[in-house]
């Protein structure tokens, strides 16, 4: 916007920019603060004098070692991976199929189906978790890996449905028809024509679903037991009981993980939107 440069307007622009920078700081700074503190040699959550002087003595990998050597954290990571990967596989398969159906103009009752499929995402997770506790207990699924896999898959499918539907919105249905007219069966058509086009959406959706499971703690609290403790569950008790700098080391690891996921998804989305 071109603004004629009277003093007031410039002051307005400067304070506007300052405000925006402050909001960006509010968004980012809390996350970044954790990273240096996780290398603190002292068991405190504040910057020691040595850290501020950038004294290498004040930094150490001590908390990372603590976590790496801790059997409980290791088990939590294994659990998170088992549950996350299985839930993602389930959510991605079912979600992609459903998105293909939803994208078809012939789909009957589309708004209703969409509402149903999106509902796990908009329902407050405390309600989902409470309901799952009642129901999964009755089915003998509480305190099992399978129960959590099903729960996390249910929470993750809306992300897959939404991202895949979004990629399909730009998809030319004539391609499918062309493939069919060339004699390709539906499976071949899917593998050769549709899948390459929706692949970015599928991968983004899978990453979303995995991130959802990997960060989910409420259903784990409600339907998980000792053998289903995941990384977020372990962090939860760490934060509630004795918050130790080891938590910060795990947090730093999760931040790195989140950054990688985010960059991949953004990449895929740009590629999909051309």
């Amino acid at each position: 916007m071109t603004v004629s440069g009277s003093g007031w307007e410039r002051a307005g622009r400067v304070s506007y920019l300052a405000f925006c920078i402050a909001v960006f700081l509010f968004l980012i700074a809390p996350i970044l603060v954790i990273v240096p503190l996780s290398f603190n040699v002292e068991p405190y959550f504040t910057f020691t004098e040595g850290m501020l002087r950038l004294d290498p003595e004040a930094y150490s990998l001590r908390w990372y070692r603590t976590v790496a050597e801790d059997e409980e954290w290791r088990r939590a990571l294994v659990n998170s991976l088992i549950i996350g990967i299985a839930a993602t596989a389930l959510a991605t398969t079912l979600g992609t199929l459903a998105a293909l159906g939803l994208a078809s103009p012939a789909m009957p009752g589309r708004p209703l189906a969409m509402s149903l499929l999106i509902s796990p995402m908009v329902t407050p997770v405390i309600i989902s978790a409470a309901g799952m506790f009642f129901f999964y207990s009755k089915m003998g699924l509480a305190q099992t890996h399978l129960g959590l896999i099903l729960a996390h898959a249910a929470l993750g499918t809306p992300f897959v449905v939404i991202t895949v539907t979004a990629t399909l919105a730009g998809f030319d249905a004539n391609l499918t028809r062309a493939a069919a007219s060339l004699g390709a069966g539906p499976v071949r058509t899917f593998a050769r024509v549709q899948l390459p086009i929706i692949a970015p959406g599928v991968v983004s959706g899978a990453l979303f679903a995995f991130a959802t499971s990997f960060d989910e703690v409420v259903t784990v609290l409600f339907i998980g037991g000792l053998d289903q403790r995941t990384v977020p569950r372990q962090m939860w008790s760490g934060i509630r009981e004795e918050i130790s700098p080891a938590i910060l080391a795990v947090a730093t690891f999760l931040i790195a993980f989140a950054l990688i996921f985010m960059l991949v998804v953004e990449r895929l989305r740009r590629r999909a939107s051309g």
Partner: protein
Amino acid sequence: MTKYRFKDRITPSAGAVAIFSLAALSWSQNALGAESVTAVSWGGSYARACTKAIHEPFTAETGIEVRMEDYNGGLAQIRAQVETGNVHWDVVDLEMADAVLGCDEGLLEPIDAAHLPPGPDGTPAEEDFFPETLTECGIGVVYYSTIYAYNEEKFSGSKPATIGDFFDLEKFPGRRGMRRTPVVNLEFALMADGVPMKQVYATLDTPEGVDRAFRKLDTIKEQIIWWEAGAQPPQMLADGEVVMSTAYNGRIFNAQILEKQPFVVVWDGQVLDWGQTGIVAGTRNLEAARKFVAFGARTESMAAIGRYISYSPVRRSGTALISTHLETGVDMKPHMPTTPANVARALHSDWEWWSDHSDEMNERFSAWLAR
């Protein structure tokens, strides 16, 4: 044709899922194979004391492995396990009211006191245990008490000495830590308000008495920081988050002795209680659990806990065995809640009153907190 590669990548990830699932399966079967008991307790320094005093000797004697888990009390997890038939916990440390409720609701296995080990002099267990410490499903472990402790460095002049001082913001300003529950806090409030110890539960039995307790709590409400896990109060005191806090006496003792923290315990108005241990109904390791409970019910086991943390045996024969702290050689007697000088100022917690009124009081308490 880069696009085809995506399809190829699906297969390895599906393979990974299969491998992980197999790993999970074989792993859970391993857990079933070895004979073990899962013992659930209060965590922190108390759990460490139990590990040293009971779990390790028990494993050495029987070869049965002990797995530990922490919790903050309550019956919810036990009920979930029993009702789903998916019992993962075997032996649980419980508060008295929960041990009775859990027994009434069929969540705990009855334990026959006749099978418990006699005292060192041959006295049958039923006579050797202090009254009420043996219930249908629960075996008493140790006496502990909820006291309040303060950080000596925060008070230069006079020091807090009575339960009334905890509520005296003028003489002793600063934040206080209290457990987020009405239990014990209502008793503290009434005692601080001048209700004689013997009248505390009779007073609480009337609506006016409950109002009075809440009014007393009102006077310090703004200054209270609430805690939930037993490990929190020593940490809050050390961090300077609070100047005084209610706490389990053993946790404060450990901070004093092992971490050299300048904490002082005020025994006046301590609320004395004892821990119960129970077996979760439907455990797959019933025999091992019974052996474990019987091992823990030995006088020597109880006395051994008292060499790591200041909790005293619930058996008469155990009193004579109270000795010194194993790591530092500190005499444990002055630190035990049941030492005559300390117990003279103790209120005995009335579990029956609480089993009747905990629902109502908890609700009233949360309404009060939210206001």
